[in-house]
């Protein structure tokens, strides 16, 4: 084994059962919320309430993906807030532009 010294000594740890179970639980929640969204899509009348429900459910899904899958929930607090706080601009821009769009619609289609 002349090459033995070049090969790294790798110690493989056994699967973390608890962690893996938790990941599948999160996956289950994501799929469950998607199914709920589907049901709402066909049973609820279009309107502010339906849109609000969709937005809230989407935020729930986004929270699980970013928090658990991307592990942000467990990162240092300063990293957590460095990523989340700039999102305020996005929310403001969304509110401002959708409002603007509704006003443009009023002018165009009167």
């Amino acid at each position, binding site marked *: 084994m002349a090459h033995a010294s070049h090969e790294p000594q790798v*110690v493989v740890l056994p699967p973390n059962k608890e962690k893996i179970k938790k*990941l*599948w639980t999160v996956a289950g929640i994501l*799929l469950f919320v998607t199914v709920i969204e589907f049901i709402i899509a066909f049973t609820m009348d279009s309107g502010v309430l339906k849109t609000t429900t969709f937005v809230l459910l989407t935020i729930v899904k986004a929270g699980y*993906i970013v928090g658990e899958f991307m592990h942000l929930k467990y*990162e*240092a607090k300063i990293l957590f807030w460095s990523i989340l706080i700039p999102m305020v601009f996005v929310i403001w821009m969304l509110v401002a532009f959708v409002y*603007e769009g509704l006003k443009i619609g009023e002018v165009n289609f009167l």
Partner: protein
Amino acid sequence: MAHTAVASSASEKDLWGGGVSPMGASYGKLMMWFFLLSDAFTFSGLLITYGLIRSSHSAFVGDHASFVFSHDYWPVPEKVFEAVPFLHGVELPLVFVGLMTFILIMSSVTMVLAVEAGHRMDRKAVEKWMLWTILGGITFLGCQAWEWTHFIVGTDVPTMMNVFNHETGIWDQVPVFGANLHVNQYGPQDFADFFFFITGFHGFHVFSGVLLNFLIYYNTFTGVYDRRGHYEMVEKVGLYWHFVDLVWVFVFTFFYLV
């Protein structure tokens, strides 16, 4: 505040003075996070513009059963996206896009399992989960290719629409099949344009994600990370892949559901 919980030996001043990671993450991982933040702004730009244009159009009023395609109002998405491969003529609203969502969420799960295996230095498991993730990504892209083709080709029955004839200078009533960047049988032209730009930009991200995932798989297979002593690259590319899934969650809601 002389001492923080981050490191007992580092004072507040030393924390940002170098030598330690105040954010508890490596340079590469941090840069991936901030890249993703900037990418989130880009996608937000697209989605917010979509929100602006859509809210400026009138919405379809009335019973969904009586819905027909028209330039006069924004289409109801479930009436546009109701086809499934091999089931021609069967109306299955949002089923195919639901399947695509399922595939992308599952590939996100296999990715996070690859990251978990990487933490344990388990090369075989990383290889296995990376292959599943790549398969999920390719399947999603295939679905999207079908979806685009269907959207471009159009329905069996065309929509009669007023199209401006540049030769004669008058508006002609012509049958329109499908959509592209010039005509759109499903509704206002902006609807088709946003469909192509938003799902296209997302699809391009999926495509680059698949390439990156393959690179990670290749490096894992050839033992690069075993020699390096850690599998942090799996984690970094994993962040990107989850982000692609995250964007799809928003596209799914705002383009297909609302």
